[in-house]
């Protein structure tokens, strides 16, 4: 195609110049979180492979993952997974059940669900540790 670089009809920066709408923001975050999660799963498989190196190596790795920095990372990971999952459900609803007619309502309803799940998850993760603080 003449004059079109890489077969793109617009430059990549058009994504940032065009007005943001709900659908586009949802798609962009879904794409970014998807890439991030795929990288994460690769790292996760590697970290679990420490099982093969015996108890000391594995337990040391798990202890590292319990330090505050990693715990914050775990919370962020949880948020990322929940967003991707909830928006994924929206995509399935749009694709299979005609949700295109009310996709914005779907998005916000699922974000509310995401917030609820997130809070439940944080509580479930950190509540058992409250006892530790009192020790």
């Amino acid at each position, binding site marked *: 195609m003449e004059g079109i670089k890489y077969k793109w009809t617009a430059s990549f920066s058009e994504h940032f110049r065009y007005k943001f709408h709900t659908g586009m923001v949802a798609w962009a975050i879904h794409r970014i979180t*998807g890439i991030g999660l795929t990288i994460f799963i690769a790292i996760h498989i590697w970290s679990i492979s420490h099982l093969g190196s015996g108890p000391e190596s594995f337990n040391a790795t798990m202890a590292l993952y319990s330090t505050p920095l990693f715990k914050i990372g775990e919370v962020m990971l949880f948020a990322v997974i929940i967003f991707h999952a909830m928006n994924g459900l929206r995509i399935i609803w749009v*694709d299979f059940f005609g949700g295109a007619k009310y996709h914005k309502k779907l998005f916000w309803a699922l974000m509310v669900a995401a917030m609820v799940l997130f809070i439940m998850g944080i509580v479930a993760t950190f509540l058992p540790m409250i006892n530790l603080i009192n020790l």
Partner: protein
Amino acid sequence: MNETIKQGGSDSGHWLWFLQRITGVGVLVTISIHWVVQHFMSMSPALPITYEEVIYRLSQPEFRVLYALFLVFALFHGFHGLWMVGRDYLHAQWSRIGLATILITASTILFVWGVTIVFTSYPPPIVQAGVIPP
């Protein structure tokens, strides 16, 4: 199927589209079970998870099936997702073939690696006898 992906054959379009969504649901289900297990079936939820506990879990057939399924769903979903993203931005034949090769290689290696961990993790003899260390 690899050839179809590389050449963009029209026949696979709807299957890959469907599989991406089915595996998405599959990941959601298996990861939810995984999360519940990690947070509510732990011996000591406040403390980091231990080698002994993980090994014990992985020795049970139900968990082996769960994690094998999780690997299939997650790796397909994630790497096919990366392929879709690449397909959006890369159009030269060589770049697509290159990307497909990298993705198929990486996901296969990760799958074999993961499945090996899941199916060859055996607890030491004392645990197999049913006595689990605290």
